[in-house]
């Protein structure tokens, strides 16, 4: 039991769990929705990734755990194949998750955090997100199968039917309202408001946490400066969401679930929403403890825990580690590698437009392509920076303290 707990504790360290989640996410998308095979090129790539994790893990213990978990889940998914979308399998998956959750409640440390009244909705969110994502993807899978067989999506078959507003709509809505009211009342009575000490300007609580819906942003602050994580990125998120209808002009998939017909659109959205947003909220709620340190779900939130945190800039990597010389005084020269890297990253779209992404460029047109690609790159900057931080303790890619400009 302790071994399992330790295993999960290590796996849930933000770096590991993030990598695991990202690669599993990619794998699910690739394998189950694109009907990939382990024997195909892509399948082998994933297999190789898992084996690589295990091999590196022989030297870096957490990665070994990651590799084992990764391979186990991968083989499990490969074994399940399209059966993942069977109702029965879905039901068992849910039961398995719920059982894991409630068995974990027996652990005092887990209970302390998960049963805290203000964390309960986030716990529910994990399951609700899982269930609804699964339902949507299942419907998409079924429709795709039907379309591939030359049929029409299920939703289209019922468009000719007509229903009364009363009772079919309003009645059910009212029932939902009543039931939800009951749930809210009982909830508010059973779980008391988690009052803490009086607000004190001279001593902030530890950990000091943002409201749950901002915990993703707070997590981003670990990797980026406030002007980026707090101003630019949130703005771009909103702008990007507004821009979706103008960028995504794919007429297919409207009014019915389908994955194959809009795999990039759905893939990018789900990655951004589930991994880069919801997962960070869950992490911030359950796994970030005192001093914003990382704690596994079965770890005690010890305020005295110390974690070595020595981070260095790209310029130091470049000049000190590579050339064994002190970084140049003039920041333009010192930060040249970082600046070039950033400029290079942002100039990927035109490069890709001529190469692998030519297809998109032609389909979307220049404006849509560049806006979409820019937003995508900005989105991907977050996981890239996260991984760089975990793997190389990279603090800033560009660090110009002279003008307070850091990336």
């Amino acid at each position: 039991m302790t071994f399992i707990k330790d295993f999960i504790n290590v796996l849930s360290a933000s770096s590991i769990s993030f990598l695991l989640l990202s690669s599993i996410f990619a794998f699910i998308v690739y394998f189950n929705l694109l009907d990939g095979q382990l024997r195909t090129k892509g399948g082998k790539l994933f297999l190789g990734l898992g084996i690589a994790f295990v091999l590196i893990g022989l030297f870096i213990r957490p990665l070994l755990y990651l590799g084992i978990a990764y391979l186990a889940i991968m083989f499990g998914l490969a074994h399940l194949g399209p059966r993942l979308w069977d109702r029965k399998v879905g039901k068992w998956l849910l039961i398995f998750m719920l059982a894991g959750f409630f068995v974990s409640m027996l652990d005092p440390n887990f209970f302390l955090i998960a049963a805290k009244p203000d964390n309960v909705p986030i716990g529910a969110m994990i399951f609700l997100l899982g269930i609804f994502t699964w339902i949507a993807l299942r419907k998409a899978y079924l429709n795709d199968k039907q379309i591939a067989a030359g049929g029409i999506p299920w939703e289209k078959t019922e468009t000719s039917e007509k229903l009364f507003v009363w009772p079919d709509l309003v009645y059910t809505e009212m029932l939902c309202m009543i039931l939800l009211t009951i749930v809210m009342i009982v909830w508010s009575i059973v779980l008391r408001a988690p009052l803490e000490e009086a607000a004190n300007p001279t001593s902030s609580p530890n950990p000091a946490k943002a409201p749950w819906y901002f915990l993703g942003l707070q997590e981003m602050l670990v990797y980026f400066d406030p002007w980026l994580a707090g101003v630019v990125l949130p703005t771009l998120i909103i702008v990007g969401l507004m821009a979706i209808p103008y960028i995504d002009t794919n007429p297919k998939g409207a009014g019915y679930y389908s994955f194959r017909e809009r795999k990039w659109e759905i893939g990018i959205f789900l990655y951004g929403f589930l991994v880069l947003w919801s997962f960070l909220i869950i992490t911030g709620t359950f796994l970030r403890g005192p001093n914003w340190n990382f704690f596994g779900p079965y770890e005690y939130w010890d305020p005295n825990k110390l974690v070595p945190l020595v981070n260095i800039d790209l310029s130091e990597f470049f000049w000190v580690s590579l050339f064994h010389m002190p970084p140049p005084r003039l920041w333009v020269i010192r930060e040249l590698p970082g600046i070039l890297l950033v400029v290079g990253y942002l100039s990927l779209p035109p490069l890709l437009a001529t190469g692998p992404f030519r297809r998109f460029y032609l389909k979307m047109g220049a404006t849509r392509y560049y806006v979409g690609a820019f937003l995508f790159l900005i989105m991907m900057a977050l996981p890239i920076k996260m991984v760089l931080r975990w793997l190389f303790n990279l603090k800033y890619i560009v660090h110009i303290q002279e003008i307070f400009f850091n990336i």
Partner: protein
Amino acid sequence: MKPQEPIPHNYSMRGLNLIFALSSIGLLMATGLIVGYDYVRGWKWFQREFMRMQQERIESDLRAAQLETNKTQLADLDRRVRENEVDIARHRDQYVLAQKDLDRWEGEHYAADQDFRFAKARLDAQRYIAEASVVEKRSDGPRQLAEYKRQDRHFNDLVLRLQDVTRKRDAAKARVDVWLGKIKTEEDKRKELTASVDLLNKQLQTVQLTGPNLILNLPMLDFVNPTFKVDQVVLSDLFVDVNYMHVPRVDRCMTCHRAIDRPGFESKKEAARLTQELQQKLDSFQIAQEKRKDVEDRIAQLKRIEDAPQDTLNPWRTHPKLDLFVGSASPHPLLDFGCTACHRGQDRATEFGRAGHVPASPRMERRWASAVSTLLPGPWDYNKRHWAWEENPFNETPMYPRQYYEAGCIKCHSGQTWVDQGDEINKATSTVELYGCYACHKINNWRFTDLRRPGPDLNGIAEKTTPEWAFRWISEPHNFRSTTRMPSFFYQRNMIDPSVVPAPEREQNIRYQDAEIHSLVTYLFSKSSHRPWQPPAGAGDAGRGKQLVESVGCMACHIDSEWLKDEKSGQNRLARRDDYPLERNYGFNLTGVGTKTHAAWIYNWVKNPKNYYADAPMPSLRLTDQEAADVTAFLLTLQKPQFMTSTIRPPDPAAVHDLAKGYLVNTLSDRDAEAKLRAMPLHDQLVFLGQRSIEKYGCYSCHNIKGFEGLKPIGTELTVEGSKALHLFDFGFVHDYISAEDGKHEHIQDNVASWVYNKVRNPRIYDDKRTKTYGDKLKMPNFHLTQDEARRITMVVLGLTKDLVAPEKMAALDSRSRLMEEGRKRVSQHNCRGCHVVDGKGRAIASTIADTNFLPPDLSPEGSRAQSPWLFNFLKDPTVMKIRPWLNVRMPTFHFTDQETNTLVTFFAEEGKAAQFDTMRAMHLPAANVVIGKTVFDMLRCAQCHVMAPVDPENPPKPTVADTTSLAPNLTLAKLRLRHDWIADWIRRPNEMIPGTRMPTNFPRDAATGGFQSPLAMAIDTPQFAQYKSRLLPYFRGDEKELRRTMTDAVALTDYLRDYIWSIGINQMRAASPDGEVPTVLQPSTPATPAMPALKSGRLERVQAGRGGGR
């Protein structure tokens, strides 16, 4: 038209209807849940339970009252009422006639009154019309005027009629009242008899759970005027700090603690204590005559509680000290001070868990915590003595656990040296003062500032003792003296305890600690002065020395033995500090002093400690050279040779090197540090390390060491330690441990009190299981405190909060109190209570002096007793007057500065509520008064004990000490020393001023009236007193009646006595020498002052000018 095709529903309507029905019921139940949950509150259940208890109590009282009320008396009254009724019935005709008559006249009166009022209204209106028509010169003016006149006449008729009718009606009424009165008087009498029962019945109605109260308290109806409601007290001058502002406290504790201010709900234990206390007061006539009945009733009530089958449990108990707290007549009434001002806790909370209750012990904590909390509060929780208790880390002001209640005194009483009736808190603050906690831990609080350093001066240590002794002493002071206050710094738990420190680290720690002690000793001895002290000229006699030490007063501050017989086991055991009163721990334990130091040093020290160290707290007892030699000889016999046999390991050069380098690398590079150390011989390294070690351990905080002046004390500041948040205390990883002091298992609770308690008892405990470098380990030394001492110190620490109190609620803030408190602080600092009783407490020396006649004086009445000029001189130089020359114990010379002396003199004067200076001294007395006084003096045989021959105040002749009955002060000294008014007062009631005094009470109080009785009232007519009578008669113009009257007047007699004593007093004594040592020449006496008018009623007319001006 084609009929519309039926459109199928998506869901089954039956199913939806069923869901709707069920969910509607669910919603209804949820609504009920809201109401129910809002209604079922814990405090309501407590109130309901208390009402039930009250009901029971009232019902039993009612039964008792009904039994008690004289049934026969009631029956008699009933009979008389009935007789009256019969009487009325017999004369019914007359009564009916009278009543009929009254009815008629009542009717007439109504009619007349009505006519009168109408007429008056019309008349007023007509007056206006008439006036207006005249002013407006209307034509109908005269007519209106005439009409007015007519109405006026009519009105006057009506007035007369009304008066007439009223008179007749009143007469009729009186006739009827005669009949009614007969019944009413009897009924009134009956009401009087049953008043207590009626009152109880009325009270019963308010606490009954059934009837109207039941409806008032029903859910949803209870918004109107329920009997269950939250009680609160708003305290606008006691504040809660909510960080952004201070808000008034709103205490709601009495919502559950209903009986807190109502006597009658004490626990059995408290009831027994109170009964005993009250009975004692009653028996010793301390209670005023008119209140005795109340007290007796209260005792009866308490006895009933003791005999009750069930004990009252909390929260329904009465406050155990109603006369001091909560009670409306107490100094801390509930409405002014509330509860949380003293107890702390969440003032506004009405739930057990949220109010901040703190368990007093791990056992209580287990009991509270083991009970599972339920969602709905109710009796099922209370049966477990538990009310949803949980450790609440967010409550910043949890209550003080039971054993630390008195910590709450400090926030208001911090300006007082001791608190009236606050025994525990006084002991606690005195303990902190005695151990000198304030020396290392800054406590910015009047009580703990401006105090002397607790340790001796170390600048002359080489003159006093040897390095070998010093090494062993620092290693473990307790091995030398079990009662020493010098704490153990070295070889403590976190350094050498095998269960805590692994073996290799242990060995290194021992080497390091050895090196540090060596370095301290080396530093101190190399920097010490080497003044030569002359040994005594002749050999002393140890036997005489022992007698001297035991008799001159050393024992007030010192203890002379390390061993004593345990009262429980009967075995000899090592003494602990708390075996003795605090005062006797003031000086060190004398055992082993001969091993510690040598003859020359002791000799000079006991001669005058200030020669060695100007700020030495020990005063001079003015020993002669021979006496000092004797004392020295005796002290040298107090040897402890086994202490000097323990081995001293030589310092390990490597350890010294490592430690010294550890300090050097803070400022130097490793290379430079090595080079510097290489250049230093071992001795220099030790001196360097010694200096750093003194800084590290903070030796300079307690001891005066040259070169460390002005350094900040090393401990954490404790000024607001009691308000520090729990998470700022480092609990380390320890929860349970075995205490090295007494081998007991200790559990550290998760609260500040428990942390502090375990910290002071085992200062290094929080290093257990920690991985720390040598220099980082905890350094607080071990004082080897007993549980009580540790508890008291914890109490003070908990009491040091930042809670804000409005100035008007602070104790002793007025200027008079400030003067007194400054004096009290001096009294405490100079250990006056070692010998004297001050403010009713002290005189620790009493246990060493067998005959109470030879005790130092009780100073409780000193303020109203002593004249300030005399007191000033005496304090500066006690040799200016010997009041009781036969005493062995000596008032020491403290070498007070003028300022200190003035502080003390002011304190005593203010305490006695007397002016510092008065003009009584210059008073000239009427000769008659003196003669009468002398005669009374003779009659009372005062001269049996008192001498009246004028003497040299410095060296009065000693009376025969064997005859203790003759030991009384020479009265010629009284005029210089005593306050004029005090003398008469003293003669009247010596035993009240100083209980147990040898001065006989000549004028006993009358138990009934409390007045003084004179023994001479009867005696004056006896034959034995005939000569006195004849001597006195001329002064009363031969009026025997007047003489007898005077002889019964104790006040007049004592005033005469005073005048006589005043007349024989000497007028001058020598002034105190400025440094308090050498006597100077006597001044010639001054001539007598002009005559004063003779007194009339035996009471001297006061000279008012001198009063009230001496502040």
